[in-house]
């Protein structure tokens, strides 16, 4: 620690802190433009000058480390003069167009011009007129306003990892430019508008629409992925104008998916009032009529429930109450991405915070396209890689990460047994073992060399395993995760405090659902199969879009053609024309409620937007149904609803503390760990599979009913489109086939698709884009390829 004096006040900060950071920590105002806490220090705006006693000229505080006994002065007549000269210099070429600039009212340049500027410029020569750039659908440019702080350039280099922004030319000709084809390559590009301290880079979708001071801010939780970032929804009247990351929140950035999903709030796919089928059409109805009709579909009927995990905790508990009280033995499922519903040795959820993943010695990604699925977690790993810490990855494809991956191995989904067994071999040789490991290994003959990378990483003192969708969606996922659990135990990464077993979930609230529905849940595929087999009368879909999302769209289509559909939700998804009744439930932005993210972090939203239509919070809709089905209503307010949650999940004391003891929201809900069930590999089943494995590819701009309803994200999805069907060229060569139109033979028949090739993927795998031409195939586990006559 270093002791120094800022304006005669003694302060203590960690050694190596810069003067600017020491000032910020101690609430001493120092003006700056180019400094940003998440970016490297450039020291090019010269606005943060301070005086240091004994130094003969002012120092740029952002790049000057503190030293013992240093006496810093942040306010003096000399500094005031320096700052006013800096402002005059920065404003020389500035167009001074604050009245038409979106940044006006939230602009550092404007604020500092008032505070430090002289109010009148002396420059009468011709101003520079740099031309604007087209950086894609999310970032608007007005380069005349640029002050060359290079925050955007450092963001592209360090945070996005794409490096597509840069400084061209020099001196008076210096300009910020981007190398872009259709759009910036980063999935975090929306943040550029936020980090630009002036009005040069602005949010394009909300450009020229509103002013900062018109906005009402609603603190909320993003549910676009299980990361559950803290967001601020900015609205004017009831209309959402934009979504931004919460300042001072856990994550400094949010992804474009979570930011621009707001476009869907006003989409025509919203369910805003109860709808009833009359003949071929859905017509608006009153709540009473709709509920009455819904009862006829549920009472005494065989019901299947498929719901979305992204509802609030209270809503999910209400679904469980409807399941327990209102219906007779319904089948229930919620995870559209999980084929294996057996309890996992370590269930969905992280044991560590994403922030702590920057610190651990080793991180291993097993089968996940992290950038598409968890862009903010990927950003943490990118930060880690920038510090030179290794990231190991084993998976079906060298998914693009815009980051350095130290060790990268390709495996087919059917190779996972051999990978794990190979790692077990290595640990065993080193005398590290766990009870049951020999039995597990004994079931697997093959060994895959990628297991060496896994074992090497496991030998580090601390290791975080990130188990992704390729394993979680595996048919034999329980056995694989059991195997990984044994490995982690053997390597000593399963103990409390340094547990590195992280299973990436597919939706929010995974920890709660895993506890609340353990033993009750089935795989979504089984619910649809039951409907197809005539074992169900009604499907109750609550916010779930099984046709648009997940692995079972083909089955879901078939099932929905056979049974009645009662849809409860905020948005229709791809089930247009299928529902018999639609009941509106308020969107995540429109409710008071609790959300748990994949780290187990609890967030309670208390300041919702007004519901756009007749939507009620989900828990109220569920209570109404329970009542209409002739039962006592178990909860009449949010507090009672929360008490039910605690009855269902008594171990979740963090929820109790936050709800009823007013504790700060920094407690974590633990993920389910150390289940005793033993699941051994079913290698025979894998060997009986068809020739090629299928890996479904996920586009962050196209998955999820909300996302698909957003026109802004649709545009991004078009620009960043994934290939429909690709294989490794060797796979084709081995089968004596040429890329082009080929026949894909799956369990449901043979169809022709255009197949492309890529060399950075595992041979023996067919990659199918979920939202591409061959989308339905992405739900298969294995297929054969044939010639394309």
């Amino acid at each position, binding site marked *: 620690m270093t002791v120094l004096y800022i304006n005669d006040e003694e302060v203590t900060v960690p050694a190596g802190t810069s003067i600017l950071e020491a000032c910020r920590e101690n609430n001493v105002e120092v003006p700056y433009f180019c400094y940003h806490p998440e970016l490297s220090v450039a020291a090019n705006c010269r606005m943060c000058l301070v005086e240091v006693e004994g130094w003969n000229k002012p120092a740029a505080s952002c790049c000057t480390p503190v030293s013992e006994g240093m006496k810093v002065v942040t306010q003096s007549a000399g500094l005031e003069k320096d700052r006013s000269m800096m402002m005059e210099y920065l404003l020389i070429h500035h167009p001074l167009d604050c009245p038409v600039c979106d940044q006006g009212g939230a602009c550092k340049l404007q604020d500092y011009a008032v505070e430090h500027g002289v109010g009148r410029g002396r420059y009468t020569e011709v101003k520079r007129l740099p031309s604007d750039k087209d950086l894609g659908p999310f970032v608007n440019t007005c380069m005349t306003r640029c002050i060359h702080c290079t925050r955007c350039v450092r963001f592209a280099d360090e945070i996005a990892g794409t*490096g*597509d922004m840069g*400084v061209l030319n020099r001196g008076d000709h210096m300009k910020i*430019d981007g*190398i872009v084809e259709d759009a910036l390559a980063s999935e975090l590009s929306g943040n550029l508008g936020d980090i630009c301290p002036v009005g040069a880079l602005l949010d394009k979708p909300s450009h020229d629409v509103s002013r900062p001071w018109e906005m009402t801010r609603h603190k909320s939780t993003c549910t676009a992925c299980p990361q559950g970032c803290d967001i601020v929804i900015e609205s004017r009247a009831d209309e959402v104008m934009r979504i931004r990351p919460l300042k001072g929140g856990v994550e400094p950035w949010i992804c474009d998916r979570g930011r621009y999903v707001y476009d869907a709030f006003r989409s025509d796919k919203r369910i805003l009032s109860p709808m009833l089928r009359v003949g071929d059409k859905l017509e608006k109805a009153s709540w009473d009529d709709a509920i009455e009709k819904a009862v006829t579909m549920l009472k005494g009927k065989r019901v299947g429930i498929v719901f979305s995990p992204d509802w609030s905790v209270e809503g999910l508990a209400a679904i469980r109450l409807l399941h327990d009280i209102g219906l007779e033995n319904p089948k229930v499922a919620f995870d559209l991405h999980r084929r294996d519903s057996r309890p996992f040795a370590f269930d969905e959820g992280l044991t560590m915070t994403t922030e702590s993943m920057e610190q651990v010695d080793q991180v291993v990604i097993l089968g996940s396209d992290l950038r598409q699925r968890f862009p903010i977690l990927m950003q943490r790993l990118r930060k880690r890689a920038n510090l030179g810490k290794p990231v190991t990855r084993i998976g079906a494809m060298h998914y693009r990460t815009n980051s350095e991956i130290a060790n990268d191995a390709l495996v087919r989904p059917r190779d996972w047994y051999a990978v794990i067994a190979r790692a077990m071999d290595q640990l065993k040789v080193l005398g590290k073992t766990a009870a049951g490991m020999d039995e597990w290994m004994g079931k697997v003959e093959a060994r895959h060399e990628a297991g060496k990378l896994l074992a090497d990483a496991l030998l580090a003192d601390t290791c975080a395993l990130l188990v992704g969708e390729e394993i979680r969606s595996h048919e034999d996922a329980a056995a694989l995760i059991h195997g990984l659990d044994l490995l982690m135990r053997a390597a000593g990464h399963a103990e409390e405090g340094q547990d590195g077993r992280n299973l990436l979930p597919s939706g929010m609230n995974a920890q709660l659902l895993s506890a609340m529905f353990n033993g009750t849940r089935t795989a979504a595929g089984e619910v649809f199969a039951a409907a197809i087999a005539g074992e169900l009368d009604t499907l109750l879909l609550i916010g779930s879009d099984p046709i648009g999302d997940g692995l079972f769209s083909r089955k879901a289509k078939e099932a929905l053609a056979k049974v009645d559909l009662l849809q409860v939700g905020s948005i229709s998804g791809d089930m247009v024309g299928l529902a018999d009744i639609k009941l509106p439930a308020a969107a995540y932005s429109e409710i008071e409620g609790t959300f748990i993210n994949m780290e187990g972090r609890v967030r309670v939203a208390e300041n919702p937007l007004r519901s756009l239509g007749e939507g009620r919070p989900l828990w109220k809709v569920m209570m109404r149904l329970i009542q209409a089905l002739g039962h006592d209503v178990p909860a009449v307010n949010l507090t009672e609803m929360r008490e039910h949650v605690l009855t269902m999940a008594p171990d979740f004391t963090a929820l109790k503390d936050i709800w009823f003891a007013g504790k700060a929201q920094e407690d974590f809900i633990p993920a389910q760990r150390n289940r005793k069930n033993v699941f051994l590999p079913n290698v025979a089943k894998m060997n009986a599979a068809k020739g090629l494995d299928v890996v479904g590819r996920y586009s962050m701009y196209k998955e999820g009913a909300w996302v698909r309803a957003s026109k802004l994200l649709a545009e991004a999805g078009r620009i960043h489109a994934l290939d429909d069907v690709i294989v490794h060229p060797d796979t084709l060569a081995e089968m004596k086939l040429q890329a082009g139109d080929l026949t894909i033979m799956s369990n449901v028949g043979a169809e022709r698709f255009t197949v492309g090739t890529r060399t950075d993927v595992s041979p023996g795998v067919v990659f199918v884009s979920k939202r591409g031409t061959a989308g339905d195939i992405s739900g298969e586990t294995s297929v054969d390829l044939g010639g394309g006559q």
Partner: protein
Amino acid sequence: MSAPDKPQFSEARLAEIDALAARYPSRKSALMPVLYMAQQDFGYLSMDTQKMVAEVLGLRLMEVREVVTFYTMFKEQPTGKYLLEVCTNASCMVNGADALYAHMKNTLGIEPGQITEDGLFSINEVECAGACAGAPVVQVNNMYHEKATATDMDALISRIRAGEVI
């Protein structure tokens, strides 16, 4: 001089680049000498050439672009075989560089950024060439012509046009 459609360093050049890059802690450091090699081989640094350099050194295109645009001696546009750079900074100016520059443009019939029809000449005004003792200075490719006069320059241009290689 026209560059091939897809510029590509020769094997010998690539070997030279590898040997050069090995002298630095990171390949990135070899960027400037490699850009000079590219300029020598392909006449100027087209976008395709810059992309190729980025690939050879494992850099991002933007990193290459930043360096290329920062230094004026990297050319992004093709020039004539002989690039005449007339210094018009202080010492040269007082010794009549402006008139010389105007005269030369007139003789050649081109403006900066253009190439004479025979592909031989381009002309440019430059800031201090660092040879004030010999002002006014005209740099012809890599050679300085000090105390240059209109007559000298006309003679030089005629000699080159007549086929003399200087």
